[in-house]
């Protein structure tokens, strides 16, 4: 048995792009799209 425990890179959760961004507090268009100045107006 390894002395150090195995490590889950994503905390054992199947995080989709939108979950990651939501957890990060982002509220982007369609979840992961950044608008520029022209589009924002």
């Amino acid at each position: 048995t390894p002395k150090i425990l195995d490590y889950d890179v994503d905390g054992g959760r199947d995080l989709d792009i939108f979950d990651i961004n939501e957890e990060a507090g982002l509220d982007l268009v369609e979840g992961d799209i950044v608008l520029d100045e022209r589009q924002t107006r």
Partner: protein
Amino acid sequence: NSIIGDKYRWPLTIPYYLEDDLEINAKGVTLKAFEQYRLKSCIDFKPWSGEANYISVFKGNGCFSSVGNRHVGKQRLSIGANCDRIATIEHEFLHALGFWHEQSRADRDDYVRIMWDRISEGKEHNFNTYDDTTSSSLGVPYDYGSMMHYSKNAFRNGTEPTIVTKIPAFSDVIGQRMEFSDSDLLKLHRLYNCTQGSTFLDSCDFERENICGMIQGQGDKADWVRVASAAGGPDTDYSNLGKCTGSGYFMHFSTGTASTGDTALLESRLLYPKRGYQCLQFFYYNSAGANDTLKIYVREYDEANPSGTLRFIQTIDGSPQELWQLHHVSLDAKTKFRVVFEGTKVGSGPAAGGLSLDDINLSETTCPEFIWRVKNFSDVMDNTPANTPIYSPPFTSKEGYTFQMTLYPSGREGYPGELSAYANLVAREGDTGQIWPCPWKQMTMMLMDQNPHIQKRMSNQRSVTTDPNMKASGSDQFFWDDPRKVGGEVTDTDGSKYFRGPGYGTAVYLTHLRAKSRDFIKGGDAIFLLTMEDVSHLTESQPLPSSPSQTPATPDRCLDVKCENGGICVVDEGGPACRCAVGEDYWYYGDRCQHSRTYWDTTVLALATSLSVLGAMIVITLVSVYCVRRRYKNRSKNHDIIMKNIHA
């Protein structure tokens, strides 16, 4: 679906800059994503060397991108924590190339039902669609398998899905984050007028009689023959495994009927390399004698040798087995060439049998280093108890580090229906020469989609990188230290002993449902392709453009241009132009971003304008009424006179 407008397109070779804050694993995976674009499309990437517009990949707080080329000079694309998956990076780059999500297509409602009452409050805007004046689906049917599609639970407020597919079978297909689907690639090809993958050279499954332009070599005494089965084996090809009557062919050199010493040459069509290195991949069935051989050559052409010169590459070690075996051969052709398969009957062997080839792929990529084949994989998935691992053999990399893959076929505890996968470092008692903790080695675990055509594969892969400074949680020990120190001793199936370090990976590598889809399991077997690459060079900053010839025009032309209020100067259509800063409720504008405006200003302005117009209208109305009344008053006076005259 794509944003309409040529101005949003990038050149076919996109300049990129990997910022220093990116995680090393993310940098490595980004480069792997670029390789997939090169293999499967005409999109290429090059380090930024001063071009006016480029993509800056950085570690932001999440995974995000803009849609299309915004012509802002440095266009940012974030690969934050947990975004370092190849499909996620490919997804964000598809945005940057000009694609929105699949379910925002104008015809979305024909294919999926959005369950509005299950969407988290305030998140409804994520399910907007774009009409077909703004976006184009490029003549490609709705694609449930697109890597640009939301998954069924996106933005849900409870436990029920927010997207219900009208064809129920696709319910768990949407949201795949494995690889480009065929439709993703078709749209990419149409948007950028691609005709060929830039590193792809050839693929052949021998289903067509022209055998992909391959030829029988000159000067040999026997031939390779296109067959559907061979005496002595195999009984079927590998592409279709005999599932379709009238199809399923492969090339066979019958050593059973050949004479000792006979050779048979099978040569590919002429190929034109660009990179100078190639990976040849093929399936090989050996039912010949133990001494019969298959050798790989390249026939290279140049001005001095217009007829070509044969150069030996390697002999294939595939002892006779009743199995289609996967092989990789690294080539280094730099001029026009052919790949040559040479079968030789060396000694007496079985009266039937021979050498067989199928599903050949040649691309200008590096070959995977190690193959781990798990036989009867469906049974293994179905019958292995939960939380029970199986281990690949230990593999030793070029730098002398040994590693292996741990796979939980029924998932780790608490993850039923999943494949869980971890990478472990390995060391043997007498190992020397390694540096510990292991510095910056990227281990990639790929479950191969065994589609015959390399460009159509949607393999599933995850990479992890050894950070020598990483501490184990709740411990002072380094996670990637010598397995003899931080690992445990294990006994291999052959009785040998070694030390296995802790595992680093994911409990949710792939669902059983997906693992049973496509060609992940073929002939009952799954094939894992494993690599360990040194990525220590990625700890250095990417060089900035420096030499005068490389220096971008942007700084020179922008030298005398000062953009105010945080604006930046970029070269747009040959001249300097300020790109102004914009906030949530304000923005700057003007040639030098010297003016500012807020949404409040806009509202006040709009209100003032409306009131002014209203006021003006009231004044005009009053004046009009006054004038009309006065005119009628005069007229009625005149009538009175006439009336009086008439009566008189």
